[in-house]
């Protein structure tokens, strides 16, 4: 009976030490040496920054009228097709409380429409 209690206590302490180990690992990972965002890629940007990125591409496209160049720039944001990040940006711009102007929205919509009907030449890298 006494021997069984000791064994039971040892198991309890064993699992407590495991829990302490996990806690120590998490403390190290989250407090002592926390994650630092460095060397990230544009596809991981927060949605509002992605939308601003798309807006920059749309502004540039307005002046350059170069869809291939716009697609190359948009490829940095990921997505299956170049118009995917543009559609997401438009959705964000229309549903967020940030006051996107109609001019900015129109630029992005124009870019989205042109991209939907765009057929890339083979040398243009696709995302």
């Amino acid at each position, binding site marked *: 009976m006494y021997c069984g209690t000791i064994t039971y206590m*040892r198991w309890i*302490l*064993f*699992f*407590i*030490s*495991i*829990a*302490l*180990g*996990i*806690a*120590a*690992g*998490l403390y190290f*990972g989250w407090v002592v040496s*926390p*994650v*630092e*965002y*460095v*060397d*990230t*890629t*544009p596809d*991981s*940007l*927060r*949605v*509002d*920054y992605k*939308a*601003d*990125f798309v*807006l*920059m*591409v749309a*502004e*540039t496209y*307005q*002046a*350059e009228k170069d869809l291939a160049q716009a697609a190359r*720039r948009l490829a*940095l944001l990921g997505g299956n097709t170049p118009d995917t990040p543009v559609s997401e940006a438009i959705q964000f711009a229309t549903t*967020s*409380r*940030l*006051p*996107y*102007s109609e*001019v*900015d929205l129109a*630029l992005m919509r124009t870019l989205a429409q042109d991209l939907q009907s765009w057929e890339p030449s083979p040398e243009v890298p696709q995302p």
Partner: protein
Amino acid sequence: MKERRGHWYLLTGFIIGVTLGIVYAWKINPVKYENTLPASLRADFKDQYRELIAVAYTANKSLERAKVRLAQLGDPDPKQTLAIQAQHSLAAKNPRPEAYALGQLAIALSQAESGGSPPSQGGSPVPKHTSLPASTLANPTLTVLPLRSTETLSPAVTLTQGIKPTASAPILSVTLFPTQTYTPTPGSPFSLENIQLVCEQIRAQPLIMIQTLDAADQPVPGVEIIVTWENGEDRFYTGLKPELGLGYADFAMTPSVVYTVRLGDEGIPESGITPKECDSPSGTRYWGSWRLVFIQK
């Protein structure tokens, strides 16, 4: 017989726990980079982001919007970083249009800071601002912050240690106008008007100081300068040190090296430029600089 067992099992359990924690953190549920800020981008992506800001600036002519976007990159001195990138891009053998856009934005920022007005391209009207642009960055901290309180951006709010975004302001609204692509100094070629030895003891290194002026004696920024010497060549542009004049550029010489200067690939080479010593009133000798003034005919 009584078995004597120590407390090593506790250490064993602790090690197992740490191992489980690491396996969970690295394999089962590794860190996913989401909702990051432009300031955390890899250096080459930051360069591309800066290029995009510059070409967007050439399209919308909104310096305020460009400044806010540059601030999002978190550079210690955005103007300086931009100028350095512009110099590097413009010095490339076949600079892309983005390089000129970078140079143009660098000049515009410098001019704005020194109280002047940015150069206009093709007489484009100034855009109308209706609000201030997106979020800016505060000093980095190790605070874990929620996203802004007024916006529901994503249910998966991920770690944001290391970088602290401030509450975001509305994104800029501007009226855009099509503009022509920036090209440096179109028009007539330049010719050397004056070359002069400048004796200024304050300079640590002898310089080739170049000034480009148009026919109306106004400084001309964005002119490509090519300096060649035995086994070497350097290319740079006027206007990237606007505090010294929009048509100014300089190059540090090495004593006893002979240089040739020309403006652009088609320019007439001015050869035989080498550091020359000057005499101070006290009799000591120091290196003087050459000032070359080019005028567009």
